């Protein structure tokens, strides 16, 4: 039941309208960081206040919400955000990627291909991909305006010079529709190819930094690289120990004090679905979580 002390989805209608305008602007200019007046939310920054505000502005009573953190529905952060919207919006929730109309995520894109009509909302800590080398906001804005992206390439150059390869494994910078360079939030670079050509709407919210940006469906998104050091969407060279998947992003899990470890899908819904369908990994138990 919705808590009557709050407006639907916590934020007042005027604030939601303001955020929706920022979202629409973001969709009209893919990859461009739209400033918005971020509101105080009843949770600390770093807990996805940007994503929560975007989700609040998108939710309707008919929506079904899924929330994941690092691919899992049952982590503290995901559970608390899900409960927050159950309480303030009374919407249906799910762990099934295919059943959700809105998915809020931190650090992952679901393995299951998203479809038209779905909205993926990313929680973003630092929206400015050029920040690392150019701390002045006035200057980074100018660089975006004038498409001066040499500096982004310098970051990758430094990676190769130091590590022999592009060591950036998360928040790997992309170029959107041949125009804006964008930080895809700290998803593993394994997920980068899923950003491009997706049928879903992808929205990015940074609360502390007060920025919203977006990828409309079927946006062309290219990961930056060098001709002689091409981008690769790497992952651990294992199969999931539970479901046997060879093509999903894996977390390394320590299993005992003796240093035993196994690799399992970070996307818990994907992994559970495969096991329910009879796929078994080396340590898998059918149907169990």
């Amino acid at each position: 039941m919705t808590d009557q002390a709050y407006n639907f989805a916590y934020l007042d209608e005027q604030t939601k309208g303001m955020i929706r305008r920022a979202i629409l602007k973001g969709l009209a200019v893919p990859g461009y960081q739209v400033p918005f007046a971020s509101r105080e939310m009843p949770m600390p920054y770093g807990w996805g206040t940007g994503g929560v505000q975007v989700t609040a502005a998108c939710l309707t009573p008919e929506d079904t919400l899924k929330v994941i953190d690092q691919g899992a529905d049952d982590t503290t952060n995901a559970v608390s955000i899900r409960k927050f919207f159950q309480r303030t919006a009374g919407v249906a929730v799910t762990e099934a990627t295919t059943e959700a109309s809105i998915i809020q995520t931190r650090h992952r894109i679901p393995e299951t291909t998203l479809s038209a009509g779905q909205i993926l909302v990313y929680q973003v800590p630092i929206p400015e991909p050029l920040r690392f080398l150019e701390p002045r906001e006035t200057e980074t804005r100018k660089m975006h305006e004038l498409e001066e992206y040499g500096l982004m390439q310098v970051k990758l150059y430094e990676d190769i010079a130091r590590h022999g390869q592009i060591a950036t494994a998360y928040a790997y910078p992309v170029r959107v529709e041949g125009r804006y360079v964008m930080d895809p939030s700290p998803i593993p670079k394994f997920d980068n190819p899923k950003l491009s050509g997706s049928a879903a709407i992808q929205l990015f919210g940074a609360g502390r930094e007060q920025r919203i940006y977006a990828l409309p469906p079927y946006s062309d998104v290219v990961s930056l690289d060098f001709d002689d050091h091409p981008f690769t969407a790497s992952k651990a060279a294992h199969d999931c120990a539970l479901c046997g998947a060879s093509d999903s992003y894996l977390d390394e899990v320590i299993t005992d004090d003796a240093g035993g470890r196994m690799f399992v899908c970070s996307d818990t819904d994907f992994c559970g679905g495969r096991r329910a369908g009879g796929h078994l990994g080396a340590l898998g138990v059918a149907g169990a979580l």
Partner: protein
Amino acid sequence: MGVMDMKLAPPDQAEAPLLSVRDLGKMYGERIGCADVSFDLYPGEVLGIVGESGSGKSTLLSCLAGHLQPDQGQVVFQTATGPRDTVTMAEAERRRMARTDWAFVHQNPRDGLRMGVSAGGNVGERLMAIGARHYGDIRAQAIDWLGRVEIRPDRIDDRPRAFSGGMQQRLQIARNLVTGPKLVFMDEPTGGLDVSVQARLLDLLRGLVREMGLSAIIVTHDLAVVRLLADRLMVMKDGHVVEQGLTDQVLDDPQHAYTQLLVSSVLQV
């Protein structure tokens, strides 16, 4: 005023100035930054700008290089597609030109280098900014340029913080010249350095200017620097150019009382 009759495209291209400055002026409120500055700079020529502190040298250089918006006047640069006034040019185009056709060497290397980026990354930035996307090529060019400014190739992955002041300044020069600019602006390039280090840097600069056929505008309060580098000299006082001419002529036979003072005070040292 000489503005309207300025020749933008003289028939003889070999004679066309690389830079034509007319009636350039910049005020800071009521205070004059620089005023009524006009001169031509020809390809391969090095122009020295001297004058005491506060005479407007840096203001003038910043206006010329597009770092400051002048209040009036023209700065016409001979681009690949003909003469263009860089004052009225769109900012995007001016910044692109600053990365390709121009170079700017700051007095303080901190203003001209990225201190958190390796020497190789500093040199490679301009290449990447104009579209270089082959790591091996970028690195090879960086090593080549480090060599040309006498920095050992094994320092390529070190950050400028680990370099001496002279090395930082040489790195700044390499970073600027790697894209083969036509015109180099320098503001007191030997400013903070020891005398022996200064001499070596000047020598290096002179060699590069000759070898690359660079045009340069060098601001300094040090007459020894212009004696060594500059073909022509402009003397500034209170924001105005009080005398200009061939360097040797101006220094050996100064006409303006202020220039005479400037030269004599140096000779006494």
